[in-house]
């Protein structure tokens, strides 16, 4: 068929899109001295408790940079014309240990320059990345607006989404940017207490006499000499009006400074607790304040703070010393954490992200698609068959990469494959690819491989987009009701296999309808081929029914075990039910003689709409938590995908009308009508 090579066009565009050199934002740095590989490696393995679990700082760095920048690398050009691309762990090293450099790196993504204008900074292009220093002039305004919009958002939630409190797009962006800047400042100022007066951030909120004091005061030494004080008492002393007495002024000043340091050091929990029964790790801030409160734990707290201080001191020396200090700190951490059962699988997590399995899987599927396209130049020939085989094998490699990544995630968490929405993307993609390849194995038509590749490309692309957009750790802790490996392994896995089968049926339907449309346009026929496609799709739909139905009923049984009701007509339950119902509509409609070939495929497209609605739509029906951003994005993408599916439905309608016309023409020739579908 002549039209086939045109399929190559999108690939070409896609490849061009990926490789086209993007303009790199400028950083106000004379030059940039990268960290040595050894230093970065020593740093990666530090442990930090975040989001309810202990993880390597590698993961923490990844999602922090994603959150700020929407990308996992920081690209910039320095003034000497050199271009640099920083890995997230290198970037975090800069933030924690070379704050002056980090402040100049353009990493804060701003999707709309209106945000920048509103905070009184001169904008670059419509969508661009800014460094902390560039935004510093608008810091105060950003804080004000951020506080206002945060309050608005709170009211929006409390009022059950009263539209008058709904954040507008730019307002939401300002809120997000404000939070990112503030999070960045905590990271920058994290070790201020150990820096002997070099503060990096927020100097402006300290009066000059305190800045002078900061250069001479060592807060760790100070902690040793102070009376016991609770946080409340500390705040009270700071708030006391000036009595004019020099001593008490000095004391209050020192306390203010101490409080300033403690406040800056919040957020990064690098220290495993003193008590082995206690699960909560602490930050330098906690160490300072807890130490202040109780003389009993003061020696321990001081020791922890000194550990951190030694890191800072070493970072000022040559890099070999710094690397040694990092390794020492990491070893100390592990010595305490390992007996507690923490951080024992952190190396796997580093491996997971360093391996970039899902990205390579995407590359494999794209590559397979290119190879596959070559097979269309001479379908059926030996060359074509070999190309098809190679494409199938590359798709298999993509699948194996996906499965490997999923397996690592399972081992890291000690959980079945699916515990959150991100997992479903990986799992459903894998299942769909596997189904496609199985179809290929049984039919050898090239259809299965094509389905597998398309599913693989779309799914892997979606997983990367989703990860970047959410920009929070995808290895999450579970809410109480999900804390059951049995149900996660059965209900959740099975229902997602059902989703995957439904999507494969949709892809086959799309292929059929598009094929039928173009074949009809070209005035040709390929009846046998299309008949086989229908039989394949019928099988996939049955497969989908089997897993959806069992998955749905299992879900009900789980609900009955945990909440005492089998069925509650809750949106997620209804989504699964609709998938079961629609597959049943297809099967029974076929038995009723209402739908035959085109009908099956058109209904498979409707099934696809239902699956995507159940998979993504119902989660966002009433959700106001991410009111700006993701919800908006989900609905946009969903609607777009439904429009695409609608186009295929239209093609189906066209072919159907054409078929009717031909049939009635034939009937006039008094040929016997088409046989009833068999009852299998």
């Amino acid at each position, binding site marked *: 068929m002549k039209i086939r090579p045109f399929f190559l066009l999108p690939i070409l565009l896609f490849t061009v899109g990926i490789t086209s050199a993007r303009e790199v934002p400028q950083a106000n740095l004379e030059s940039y001295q990268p960290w040595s590989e050894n230093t970065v490696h020593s740093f990666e393995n530090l442990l930090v408790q975040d989001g309810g679990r202990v993880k390597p700082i590698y993961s923490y760095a990844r999602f922090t940079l994603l959150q700020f920048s929407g990308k996992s690398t920081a690209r910039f050009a320095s003034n000497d014309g050199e271009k640099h691309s920083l890995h997230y762990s290198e970037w975090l090293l800069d933030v924690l240990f070379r704050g002056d450099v980090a402040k100049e790196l353009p990493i804060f993504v701003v999707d709309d320059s209106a945000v920048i204008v509103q905070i009184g900074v001169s904008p670059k292009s419509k969508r661009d990345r800014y460094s902390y220093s560039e935004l510093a002039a608008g810091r105060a305004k950003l804080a004000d607006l951020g*506080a*206002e919009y945060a*309050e*608005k958002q709170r*009211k929006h939630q*409390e*009022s059950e989404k009263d539209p008058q409190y709904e954040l507008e797009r730019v307002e939401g962006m300002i809120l997000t940017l404000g939070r990112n800047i503030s999070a960045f400042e905590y990271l920058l100022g994290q070790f201020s207490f150990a820096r002997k007066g070099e503060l990096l951030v927020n100097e402006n909120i300290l009066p000059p006499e305190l800045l002078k004091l900061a250069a001479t005061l060592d807060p760790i030494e100070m902690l040793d000499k102070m009376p016991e004080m609770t946080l409340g008492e500390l705040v009270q002393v700071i708030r006391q009006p000036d009595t004019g007495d020099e001593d008490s002024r000095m004391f209050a000043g020192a306390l203010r400074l101490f409080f300033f340091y403690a406040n800056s050091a919040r957020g990064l929990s690098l220290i495993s607790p003193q008590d082995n029964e206690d699960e909560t790790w602490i930050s330098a801030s906690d160490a300072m304040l807890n130490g202040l409160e109780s003389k009993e734990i003061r020696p321990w707290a001081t020791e922890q703070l000194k550990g951190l201080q030694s890191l800072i001191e070493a970072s000022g020396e040559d890099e070999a010393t710094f690397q040694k200090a990092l390794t020492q700190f990491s070893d100390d951490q592990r010595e305490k954490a390992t007996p507690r059962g923490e951080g024992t699988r952190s190396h796997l997590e580093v491996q997971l992200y360093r391996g970039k399995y899902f990205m390579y899987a995407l590359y494999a599927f794209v590559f397979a698609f290119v190879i596959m396209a070559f097979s269309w130049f001479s379908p059926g020939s030996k060359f074509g068959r070999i190309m098809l085989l190679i494409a199938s094998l590359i798709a298999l490699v993509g699948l194996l990469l996906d499965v490997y990544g999923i397996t690592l995630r399972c081992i890291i968490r000690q959980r079945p494959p699916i515990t959150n929405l991100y997992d479903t993307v990986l799992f459903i993609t894998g299942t769909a690819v596997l189904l496609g390849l199985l179809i290929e194995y049984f039919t050898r038509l090239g259809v299965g491989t094509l389905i597998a590749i398309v599913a693989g490309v779309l799914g892997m692309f979606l997983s990367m987009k989703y990860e970047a957009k959410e920009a929070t750790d995808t290895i999450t802790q579970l809410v109480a009701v999900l804390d059951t490996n049995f149900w996660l392994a059965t209900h959740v896995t099975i229902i997602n296999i059902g989703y995957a089968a439904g999507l494969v049926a949709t892809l086959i339907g799309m292929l059929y309808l598009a094929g039928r449309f173009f074949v009809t346009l070209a005035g040709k026929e390929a009846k046998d081929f299309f008949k086989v496609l229908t039989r394949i799709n019928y099988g996939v739909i049955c497969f989908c029914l089997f897993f959806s139905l069992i998955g749905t009923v299992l879900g009900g049984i789980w609900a009955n075990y945990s909440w005492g009701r089998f069925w509650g007509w809750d949106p997620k339950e209804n989504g699964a039910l609709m998938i079961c119902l629609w597959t049943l509509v297809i099967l029974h409609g076929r038995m009723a003689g209402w739908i035959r070939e085109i009908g099956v495929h058109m209904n498979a497209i409707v099934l696809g709409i239902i699956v995507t609605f159940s998979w993504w739509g119902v989660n966002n029906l009433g959700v106001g938590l991410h009111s700006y951003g993701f919800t908006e994005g989900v609905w946009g993408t969903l609607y777009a995908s439904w429009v695409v599916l609608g186009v295929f439905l239209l093609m189906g309608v066209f072919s159907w009308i054409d078929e009717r016309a031909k049939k009635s023409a034939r009937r006039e020739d008094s040929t016997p009508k088409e046989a009833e579908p068999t009852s299998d």
Partner: protein
Amino acid sequence: MNPKKIFLPLTLLAAALLSVACQDSGATGPELVQRELSEADNSFNLVDTSAERFRYQTAPSNPHGGETGASVAPTGGGNPGLTYTTPEGWSEKAGSAMRDVNLGFGENGEGECYVARLPGMGGGLLANVNRWRQQMGADALTQAEAEALPTKPLFGQPASFISLDGAFAGMGASEGKGDYRMLGLILASDAGAVFVKMTGPQKLVKANQKNFDIFTSSLDISQ
């Protein structure tokens, strides 16, 4: 979407079939039935007044600062909206989170008047009066002095009226703006506090004193 629309014909049909005449004094319902006693029936909280019974902690003459009872219920209905007359020459200003109504007046909008509501006492009358007095550079009052302040009606209840001249140092400002006048109403009760505060250059506020009364007396809960 009203199910009654569907059930109406069905009900009529049923009524015709059974030919039950329930038009006149169908007002008599079935007999009451007894239920089993359980442990919880052994003790009731026997309160004397309706106010206590309906969870208005204070006496009915001093209710929730002009709010509906819904806000004390555990469901937390949130603040109901307000209706008011905007006096001539006044205009709406972009609100802040704390303010329910925020109006500005004067050529450059240098005068402002806002309404804020806080749950609970909001610190009580005295603390709030003195906070405002401090902003205007005036000395603190004693409890007795604060209670003896003149009142004006607000939401149909007497609210303490404050009128002060001085240098105004609002929230966060370090230096006061000279020759300012502040007019304020504070309505504090256990269930919530309402504040109306107007500030601006003395002349401007003086010219708008009447408008302040118009505005405050027009305030009502929107229904």
